[in-house]
């Protein structure tokens, strides 16, 4: 018996809808579960209090500061270096074998598992260079991890700028650098910033690299040479050792909220800047 095509269409559409609904459902389940279990323990004193009794009570302020400092170090190094490299690769070199080789290399490194960066960071920064377990070691390792991604996304954003923009600016007498800053960068900025912001989000959730290079100290870090926890590491330790599931959920809730805020603002910015450009 041959099933009429419009029935297969309806069946197919329902199944596809179910699949998508399931995917979104999982998202809502995970986020909802964490927020439901955690938000009720999140208070101002939780956010600003010290870690007490290894995390069984108190707050997570040291972890928040640890996360913030580590990301500052990572982005402070990877963003300028990465965007500058991307500008050079996209604007100052012509398509050639060397550039292709470099791009291939960067592509490979962007796919390397994060644990390898942890291994590398542990050996180079913690042991060989003597920084020990510190925010500096963690930030540098994170910087190495997100550098390829920032270069790739920035370069793609730069390359997506139509050639006319550059030509028009050049024909008006602009120097190469002026072409870049006045004609190309403004157009590519949403893409570049999105890449940077998403790298921030990725660093916040990253545990493998951080735990081996920045350690897991519970005290407030006094400088980048001190060891510190990030919220992700704190959550990992609390959850794994069964120290306190309330505190674990609360930490995860704060962490997920922070990541949500970062991701949503990245999208919002992308959207707004792109819409602005379309009407321009």
């Amino acid at each position, binding site marked *: 018996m041959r099933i009429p*095509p419009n029935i*297969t*269409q309806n069946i*197919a*559409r329902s*199944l*596809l*809808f179910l*699949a*998508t609904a*399931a*995917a*979104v459902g*999982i*998202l809502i389940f*995970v*986020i909802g*579960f*964490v927020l439901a279990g955690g938000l009720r323990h999140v208070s101002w004193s939780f956010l600003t209090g010290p870690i007490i009794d290894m995390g069984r009570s108190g707050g997570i302020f040291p972890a928040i500061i640890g996360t913030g400092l580590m990301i500052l170090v990572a982005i402070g190094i990877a963003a*300028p*270096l990465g965007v500058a*490299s991307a500008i*050079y690769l996209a604007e*100052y070199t012509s398509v050639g074998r060397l550039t292709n080789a*470099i791009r291939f*290399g*960067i*592509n*490979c*490194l962007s*796919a*390397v*598992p*994060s*644990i*390898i*960066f*942890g*291994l*590398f960071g*542990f*050996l*180079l920064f913690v042991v060989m260079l003597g920084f020990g377990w510190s925010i500096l070691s963690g930030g540098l390792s994170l910087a*190495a991890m997100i*550098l*390829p991604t920032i270069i790739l996304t920035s370069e793609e954003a730069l390359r997506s700028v139509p050639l006319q923009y550059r030509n028009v600016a050049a024909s008006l007498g602009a120097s*190469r*650098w002026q072409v870049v800053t006045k004609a190309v960068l403004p157009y590519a900025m949403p893409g570049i910033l999105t890449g940077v912001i*998403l790298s921030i989000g990725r660093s916040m*959730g*990253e*545990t493998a690299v951080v735990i*081996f290079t920045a350690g897991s100290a519970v005290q407030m870090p006094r400088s980048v040479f001190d060891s510190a926890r990030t919220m992700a590491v704190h*959550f990992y330790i609390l*959850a*794994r050792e069964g120290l306190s599931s309330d505190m674990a959920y609360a930490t*995860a809730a704060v*962490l*997920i909220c922070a*990541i949500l805020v970062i991701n949503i603002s990245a999208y919002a910015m992308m959207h707004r800047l792109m819409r602005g450009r379309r009407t321009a």
Partner: protein
Amino acid sequence: MDRLISKLLFFAACSSTAILALIALFIFKEGVPIMIKSGLGHFIFGTVWQPLEGRFGIFPFIVGSIWVTIGALVLGVPFGVACAVFLAEFAPRSWVNFLKPAIELLAGIPSVVYGFMGVVWLAPLIRNYLGGPGLSILAASCVLAIMILPTIVGVSIDAIQAVPKTYKEGSLALGATQWQSTWRIILPAAKSGILAGVILGMGRAVGETMAVIMIAGNATQIPHSILDSVRTLTANIAMEMGFAVGEHRQALFATGVVLFFFIMILNSIALRFAKKKF
């Protein structure tokens, strides 16, 4: 001034390349000697990992990584492609603007949260209803499938949207339903792009560490069923990294080399597939 800036940018590009080359060299310098010493065949196919006795066979971990990845793909690819087809072909535009970012958000959730949910929810379910320790290939595959879903969905949507509209219009003009057009014309045309997404997802699954340590059990034996516990290459590196010295440490770097090559090959294949033009 312009020359100064161009020199600075050149310096930045060189530094970046140098840093990345340094990382690669570091890993190779530490890892390759032990592979040569044990013999490449013995290292990759040896089934005994007793580092404190000098025996470095990583085959059980390779098998573990492969099982877990294949499981993730078996679960994630149909799921992901279905979502992509729905979003690209059947969903109203207003829905897509909300649903696509929502699915991409799945990639933003930290892997340790997924691992934790797996331990708290999934492992007990598997243990009570299917048997085995619960901390198993199946649990890891489920969690990894969710983690790679956004990659597969994103790339597949791009691949489907890259198919020229004329294909679809021609098919509809001939009287086919939308589903028939999608299934018989568009999807086959988008095949290589979707494959690229699948391969990228595979790379991500192979590289995942924290979630796997939490829910795969980390047993060192070769698994016989999806309910068995396994240790992946990445988990092995993470568990032994802190205290490994000498040859043991080199063996972990060598594992890193194997991972590096594996992912590099996967990525090259993915790139070639993604470049297909119409």
